[in-house]
């Protein structure tokens, strides 16, 4: 239950973070205009975009949400199996497809709907397999010899 709650918040934070980052970066790119030619032009354009991105509240919010995702993902790994947490977070792909369909009016191909269905089925299977298969002692001692 704890794992499900933590991972659900993590996935939602990740999806929202990606949306804010995309919107923020698209806005920054639009103000920056097209890149001038040549290597120097490309480099100065990249620097310009990076500096402007750091002033965009949407980019900051998106980055913050992705940090929240990573913190919750890491926290869940402190008690649950990696082979449980990783496939479970794949449900985020389904959330992205649904968000694109409902909020951004994106067209969703048949392959993407089928993929979402297959991922959901996979996550249901994984969630039935128990979240931890290693003992606490054992997990803390793996590679303990090289832990100076």
């Amino acid at each position, binding site marked *: 239950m704890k794992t499900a709650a933590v991972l659900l918040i993590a996935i939602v934070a990740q999806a929202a973070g990606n949306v804010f980052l995309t919107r923020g970066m698209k806005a920054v790119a639009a103000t920056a205009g097209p890149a001038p030619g040549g290597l120097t032009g490309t480099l100065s354009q990249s620097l310009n975009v990076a500096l402007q991105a750091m002033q965009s509240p949407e980019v900051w919010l998106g980055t913050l949400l992705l940090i929240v995702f990573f913190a919750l993902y890491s926290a869940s790994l402190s008690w649950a199996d990696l*082979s449980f947490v*990783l496939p479970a977070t794949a449900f985020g792909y389904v959330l992205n497809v649904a968000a694109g369909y409902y909020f951004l009016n994106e067209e969703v191909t048949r392959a*993407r709907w089928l*993929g979402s269905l297959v*991922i959901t089925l996979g996550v249901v*299977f*994984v969630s039935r397999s128990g979240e931890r*298969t290693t003992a606490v002692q054992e997990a803390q001692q*793996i590679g303990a010899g090289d832990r100076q």
Partner: protein
Amino acid sequence: MKTALMIALVVLGGSVGDVFITKGMKQIGEIATLNVRELLRIAGRTLANKWFLVGVWFMAVSFFSFLAVLSWADLSLVLPATSISFVITTIGAKLYLRETISPVRWAGILLVCIGVALISLP
């Protein structure tokens, strides 16, 4: 050939990174508090954990390889190809972290892998 090598680097970097991050977090031990001061202390210990940092470093290698390969290869090839990382990471979790992968869990992971490949097709 160059593309295949880079995709291998993206996948292996991500998988090795995930395995080391898990190893570090298992050393930290189960987080079972909502006390802010306690959580900040755990965060500090995590950021000082050698294995966690090595894992993050591998993740960074994977991420920059991903950016590099996208500069010449199509996203519609690279993205479905990287879905194999679900299987590679699971093998790492089984061999190195000694997690038990039951047949039900294997079936779920394979379904996720196929589903992610389907979703990332153009």
